[in-house]
């Protein structure tokens, strides 16, 4: 479970997140949308303890991220927007390293690491240095690292970017299965189709503030656009009229 109360983050005079209140329940897949620069990645960094909030509080799996940092971090896994991994480790070694950091027993690692590499179809690539991996392979490796220590809360910043259709399908199924097992999934994405199909609830963030939040039906009500799909709702909330005007430059 993720609980966010009055979260504010300012960088000098610029407010990236302006008083965010949110609660994501166990077993829920929560989609976090918004235009570029809306404050999504900043929110992800605040949840995962990569940034200190200017004000407000974040609790992950019952632990205050600011006060019980290590417990909160142990209960959480992150897929960042740039899946940068040590280039001079092999995929297997990276998973071993993550397993050691999160205290996964050695016997579990012996069993789980080859399983995860097989699940993500790494084949013999698991023994190669990460520097030779493509973006998608790194993304899958980071996901495998999260699955290795099986956290209660998964925070994912654009997890589908760079994945081939088969891997994307696999990842979607993994998320559904994890949510079914009571894991909390907080996902930032620009792919509205995925958010629409996968997420139980969706929030749309604009200029650091939450413009709308709820199920697709609730969003339709909030945007006063009954019967429209998520893309139309998103465009209407983030300035669809302006968007239409922009097309005249084409």
């Amino acid at each position, binding site marked *: 479970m993720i609980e966010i109360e009055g979260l504010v983050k300012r*960088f000098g005079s610029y407010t990236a997140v302006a008083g965010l209140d949110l609660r994501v329940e166990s077993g829920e897949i929560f989609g976090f949308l918004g235009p570029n620069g809306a404050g999504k990645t900043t929110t992800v960094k605040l949840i*995962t*303890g*990569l*940034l*200190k909030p200017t004000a407000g509080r974040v609790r992950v799996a019952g632990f205050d991220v600011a006060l019980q*940092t*290590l*417990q909160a*971090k*142990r209960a*959480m*896994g*992150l897929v*960042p927007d*740039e899946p*940068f*991994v*040590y280039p*001079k*480790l*092999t995929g*297997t*070694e990276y998973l*071993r*390293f*993550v397993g*050691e*950091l*999160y*205290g996964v027993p*050695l016997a579990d*690692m*012996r069993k789980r*690491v080859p399983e995860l590499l097989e699940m993500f179809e790494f084949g*013999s690539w698991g*023994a*190669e*240095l990460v*520097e*030779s991996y493509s973006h998608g392979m790194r993304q899958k490796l980071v996901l495998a690292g999260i699955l290795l220590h099986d956290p209660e809360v998964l925070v994912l910043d654009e997890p589908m970017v760079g994945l081939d259709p088969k891997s994307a399908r696999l990842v979607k199924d993994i998320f559904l299965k994890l949510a079914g097992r009571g894991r909390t999934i907080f996902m930032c994405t620009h792919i509205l189709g995925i958010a629409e199909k996968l997420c139980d609830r969706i929030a749309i963030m604009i200029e650091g503030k939450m413009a709308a939040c709820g199920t697709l039906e609730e969003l339709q009500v909030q945007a006063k656009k009954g019967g429209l799909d998520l893309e139309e709702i998103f465009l209407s909330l983030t300035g669809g009229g302006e968007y239409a005007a922009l097309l005249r430059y084409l």
Partner: protein
Amino acid sequence: MLALLLRRRARSLGNTLRRFTRYEWTRNLAFFCAGLGLLYGLHHGFYRLLSYLTAIELIGVLLMWKLTAMMLLMTLSMVTVSSLLTSLTTLYYSHDLCFLMKAPVSLRTVFLDKSLESAFFASWMIGLILAPYVLAVQRVAHLGWSFFAAFVAVLPPFLLLAASFGIGFTLLLLYLFPSSRTRDVVWVFSSLSLSVMYGLVRFAQPERLIRPDALKVVAEYLGFLQAPTAAYLPSWWLARGLQAAARGRWGAYARDAAILWGAALAVYAVLVALAGATYFAGYSGAQEGTLKKRVHSYSRLRVPPLLWKEWVTFLRDVKNWSQMLLIGGLVFVYLFSIRRLPLDSPDLRSLIAFLNVGTAGFVIAALGLRFTFPSVSLEGKAWWILRCAPLDVSQVMRQKFAFSAVPTLAVTLVLGLMTNQILDADHFTACLSLGALLSVALVVCAMGIGFGALFPRFSVENIHQIESSLGGFVYMAASLFYIMLTLAILAWPMQMHFSQRFGRAAWDWRVAAFAVAAWLALNGVALALPWTLGRKSLENHE
């Protein structure tokens, strides 16, 4: 098109300058002044050396020009080796190459842009160091500013020629062996060349040239002094041109200047012509990774995971191997220099063994600047992994400290024990200097991690940007200040020890106790202050 590409650099520089805060202006001005001070110091040193040389009857002026030719030859080789490394990274691995190669810009234009960047970065600092030397020649030989202007006019083609050799070699090498493995080979090869070059210069014992007892020998080699130094290389053309300018033979100077400019333009034109056919093959090959399977055994780790990761990634980076070769060469030359010191009395040898704390401490601080200080920043974009993991910043810093401390202590032990052995220092001095050196090694290492955490730079392209940053400067200044204070404090017991040796006075135990307390306090502060500041800074890093 080249003008457009060069304009983007000017625009970027302009934007950077315009966005400087007052703090940044002050900081950069301080750096600039420190740089000027350093250049002035160099000039003063060169001036004293040249004044001494020119005062020697008959051969004084010859010696000065011989030294000038040797300096220029050394500059030529250093720029060439440096451009080997720089051209590899700028011509084949720059971040903007992907954009430039896709853009409708001819390959030769991209090569021109990138090779000029390589030539500039490989030569500007080495070229700048020539300026105080030439000014010293001007002062010693009472020459006018026209001499310096003559030097400035021929310096660009000289540096461009030197860099062209390295760039051309890299261009051909990557064309013939288009693989990322070639990059590793060039790294090791270049470092080995630098070590060998450094060793050769040192083993030639240039100090003998300025020792009175060696002057007879030098006089016998008057012919050698008058002979050209590597007559077919641009360094001799420049040396000959400068000599002509000093004697007011402007016709001869103009001929050498024309040769230098002509050769530089011709060599560069050949390079650009070659690039059209060879550059892309090398660029394409350099993008291809090499595959080599590594089997991982799931045996229990004997060290903490972060330490294990540091060890594995360090050993797999060829750049570190080449640096270790350089360190090996440096330690060897250091010990050779100690051995060649003209020390006759046991007292003088013991004194030098004590002063070795300062010089070896400087070497340790310099190694720390390369290996320890950047270790936090080198986490780079992967810093998120440790930041998200259930580890606190102190643990990360402790494990990085442990990783750096072991090799630092090993080098320190070699320097300390071997120096004491070579100098045959007395028991007290040997124990004091070795103990002091070991503490210096540990504290300087902790300072490296502390300052590295205080000034982290996770988004840099290469390690040199970390070393030459403000943090690197502060770390080096703080380390040298700490080493100086250590020497000052330990000078008390050393003074009492020497007084006792000469039978002048007995030990004053109160002074000794005060020295020990001051030494402990100094180490405590030097350990705790940067470490605590660094930890807090890294915890709050955004």
